[in-house]
């Protein structure tokens, strides 16, 4: 069992069983979907993605409430946080948060965790209490997108001026 399979098994534990079975039956279809479109629509769960094409071994789509549980599992498996990115899907009225994890290992396993929140109420729990390195990345995402990381110890502007009242990476932001 290699690292990718181990991590996949560990992560699948937090998704409910019936959902997991559905995922397995539609696995092939889901993988095709990942290659064809941004697949923000696909069901929550863990799927393997071709590393040569997407640069990530596992793609996890989860509910915003599950990001902390996933961070705990990945932290226990010696992953480190590469970055947190926001994506503004203006047409779908959603903001997506993309977490990238990797390991200091020759048996590579990169994990992408994605969660979407409505644009009108962009709130997601913070993972900075589990992974202190997430602190600045979350502040940056708040800075650019206005996503509120609930429970963050110091959610203030980091790169923009402290008195800025706009979120520049939103697609409808006009300077």
């Amino acid at each position: 069992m290699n690292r990718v399979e181990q991590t996949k098994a560990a992560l699948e534990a937090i998704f409910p069983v019936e959902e997991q079975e559905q995922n397995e039956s539609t696995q092939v279809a889901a993988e095709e979907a990942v290659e064809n479109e941004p697949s923000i629509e696909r069901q929550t769960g863990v799927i393997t993605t071709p590393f040569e094409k997407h640069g990530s071994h596992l793609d996890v789509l989860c509910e915003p409430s599950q990001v902390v549980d996933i961070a705990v599992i990945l932290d226990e498996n010696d992953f480190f946080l590469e970055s947190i990115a926001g994506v503004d899907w203006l047409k779908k009225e959603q903001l997506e948060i993309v977490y990238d994890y990797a390991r200091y290992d020759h048996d590579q396993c990169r994990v992408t965790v994605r969660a979407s929140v409505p644009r009108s109420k962009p709130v997601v729990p913070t993972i900075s209490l589990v992974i202190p390195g997430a602190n600045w990345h979350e502040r940056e995402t708040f800075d650019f997108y206005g996503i509120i990381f609930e429970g963050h110890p110091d959610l203030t502007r980091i790169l923009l001026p402290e008195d800025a009242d706009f979120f520049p990476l939103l697609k409808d932001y006009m300077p």
Partner: protein
Amino acid sequence: MTLPVELRHDETFVLNLGPQHPATHGVLRVKLTMDGEYIVKAEPVLGYVHRMHEKLAEVAPYAQFMPNTARMDYLHALAFNHGYALVVEKAAGIEVPERAEYIRVITVELNRIASHLLWWAAFLLDLGGFTPLLYAFDDREHVIDLLERITGSRLTYCYMRFGGVYNDIDDEFITGTRDFIKRLRSRMPSLYHDLVTHNIILIKRIKDIGFISAEQCRKYGATGPVARGSGIDYDVRKNEPFSVYPELDFDVPVYDECDSMARYMVRMDEMEQSLRIIEQALDKLPDGPVQAKVPKILKPEAGYYYSAVETARGSLGHRLVSDGGKNPYKLKLRSPTFSNLSLFGEVAEGMLLADALAFMGSLDLVIPEIDR
């Protein structure tokens, strides 16, 4: 009448280090809460050279972002070129000719040496030694001249293209590079190691200072020489081979001491490894084209793409989200020193101010890359 000032023993005061301070190498501000000469709390304040490159990426076609990549890490600009080219090639499914990949590796490694030389010079300048700067800049000048010859610029390169490089290398470049390898190898033991590395003043300043444990590195996502100085064997070139690195034989220097000296030694050893890579790449350099046929307007398939490369400071990631259009829908840059600096506050607590400056120098910060 003036009242006598009584300082209570537990009283602290706030000291601003920067944004205009020579030891912060640019415009980084650190808000220090001091108890005498000791740091109680250190809070880096970022954003003084923030230019919002990520928004600029979204408003222009893929190719137009290439010059911007060099303006982030101006010391290792070619690695940023390379990382961006790789992620777009991955998304658009572009094959790169082998010769172009070899040329990319040669130029990126030359640039890495130039970056380490400048770090070395500036670090020792922070510690009060002026002479090393003159030696390092002398050698760096040779690298810059070589790169200028083929890329056309001296610092902010825009040399890579999707599917290749902009310009082929010539015989004069190859001879010049071989001469440079000989020159740096002959100067390294005497001028660099005898004069500085074994110097007791340097050792007293940086040995056992700035202790970062491997666990702290992992918690904060530190990579590059900072992680390798803490005993973590992680180098994207080895762990997640890209380009033609798997075909080249080189070692990843790792030191277990976790202090500033270990990080210093990692970088010094890396220069020799880069020379080895360049030497082999020049020997193996195949003939052929340096640019693949690529459509003028790229429209990669919609999807999520990630690509990592190793810069002089650590793992640089590009997170690209495409919606199938001609502009990147989202391009997030994971700059290595952003994560490396985030552990500064925790490590600097309880340190002497003078030691914290030596520690900060050993992190090899490039501020425009943190602020993007």
